[in-house]
């Protein structure tokens, strides 16, 4: 065990080029998924928070439930859709990083949407009278609340990133874990462990945890400093 840890340490230090390619791809996939998801789910969450419509409660319950969508199920759904024999097969996206981004976006959207809805709903209780009295229209209300709550919403994005960066089930199914192309930190850890190459698996595990901690710290400090300086 000790020798494995030592080798892992040496690997990280030697800045193995392929290691960096894997780390880079992991970040690219997960960050892209969060970015695309935010584009959809922040406005969606805000609109649900601010409007009454038939079936609203049902939608809220479904979105909350989907936060627990098992990654492998998300992977399976995307796999069946993108396979050449599936409905979107002509796009030729299976076994590409794009497929991985799609699968992770699917996983992350319910989380960001649900947290956004909660945040905006809470803020609306406070802002409702003022914004109604100022005759602010529906879209402008959403924009105002999203902007004013941007630091809290960052926490939602962070939760999404955590989920994306940590999962392996979805991306291994839709990405195929192809060497040099769709291999990420989590899929490599799974592979190297199954090959018995523990130093490499441990090295990547340490890097992955380190990155998650770093991103959390970054977002937390941005939230605190930003909130302090802008009064948000």
């Amino acid at each position, binding site marked *: 065990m000790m020798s494995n840890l030592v080798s892992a340490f040496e690997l990280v230090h030697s800045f193995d080029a392929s290691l960096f390619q894997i780390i880079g791809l992991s970040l*690219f996939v997960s*960050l*892209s998924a969060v*970015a*695309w998801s935010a*584009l959809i789910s922040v406005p969606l969450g805000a609109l649900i928070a601010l409007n009454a419509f038939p079936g609203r409660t049902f939608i809220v319950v479904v979105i909350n439930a989907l936060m627990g969508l098992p990654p492998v199920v998300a992977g399976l759904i995307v796999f069946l859709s993108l*396979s*050449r*024999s599936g409905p979107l*097969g*002509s796009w*030729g996206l*299976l*076994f*590409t*990083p*794009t497929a991985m981004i799609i699968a992770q976006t699917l996983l992350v959207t319910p989380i960001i949407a649900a947290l956004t809805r909660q945040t905006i709903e809470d803020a609306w209780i406070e802002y409702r009278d003022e914004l109604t009295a100022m005759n602010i229209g529906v879209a402008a209300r959403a924009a105002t609340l999203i902007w004013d709550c941007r630091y809290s919403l960052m926490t939602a994005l962070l939760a999404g990133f955590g989920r994306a960066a940590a999962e392996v089930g979805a991306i291994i199914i839709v990405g*195929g*874990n*192809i*060497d040099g*192309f*769709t291999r990420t930190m989590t899929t490599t850890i799974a*592979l190297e*462990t*199954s*090959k*018995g*190459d*523990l130093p490499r698996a441990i090295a990547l595990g340490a890097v992955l945890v380190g990155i998650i901690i770093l991103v959390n710290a970054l977002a937390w400090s941005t939230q605190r400093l*930003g909130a302090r*300086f*802008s009064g948000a």
Partner: protein
Amino acid sequence: MKRLHTLAALAVLGILSITPASAEDKSIVVASTTSTQDSGLFGHLLPAFKQKTGIDVKVIAQGTGQALDTGRRGDADVVFVHAKSAEEKFLAEGQSTKRYPVMYNDFVLIGPKSDPAGIKGTKDIVAALKTIKEKGAPFISRGDRSGTNIAELKLWKVAGIDIAKDKGPWYKDIGQGMGAALNTASAANAYVISDRGTWLSFKNRGDLVIAVEGDKRLFNQYGVMLVNPAKHPNVKAALGQQFIDWLISSEGQKTIADYKINGQQLFYPNATDPNA
């Protein structure tokens, strides 16, 4: 503060605008087995092929059964597997028009040093399996329709054992690849059938050693096929055929033979063998 916001917005836009390299550059998807990947063969072969032709080979490593299914769905251009009966079925279905033998190696029965079934050193794999069952010694099966799994099930049949009916708690069906099976065998002090290539490159042996080898029935043949473009128009037939042609060319065959771990050769090229 505003500058920070602009920077953040640009970063996000930057991420969103990067499209991963399009699949229009020269590449093919090969559905292959975990044994060819885990043994490190592809790591040795593919760079040589890329250097010669500039073609990127993207390997999806699955069990033989899964790999052939990937071919059936049209999600791969070439399949490179090791279960002749399954490959011939693939051909019969019209999923490919020609099967090319490429190389062979052999399977070995791996087991713990302590040898609970008392079979270490025998040359008769069928007798060994019979003994394992009689003694109820722990045995790991891959259970994933891989070439290795198909071979294992065939051997039980030859031993006259209906393993699906007669298995007991000593028989553990894990449904995973070769590396995982070896890991499990190592942790559970159990027997497992492995291809020699993966065994030689496996780094987590623990107390495992080769228990039985050399039986002719442990012969393991690999074949490669182009997925039929008539059935799946998206298949990159020309590039795929280039890969196959290279594998069976004298250059490709030599590259295969050159792959060694600790001086030991893992795969033996036999593309010219008419019986393979």
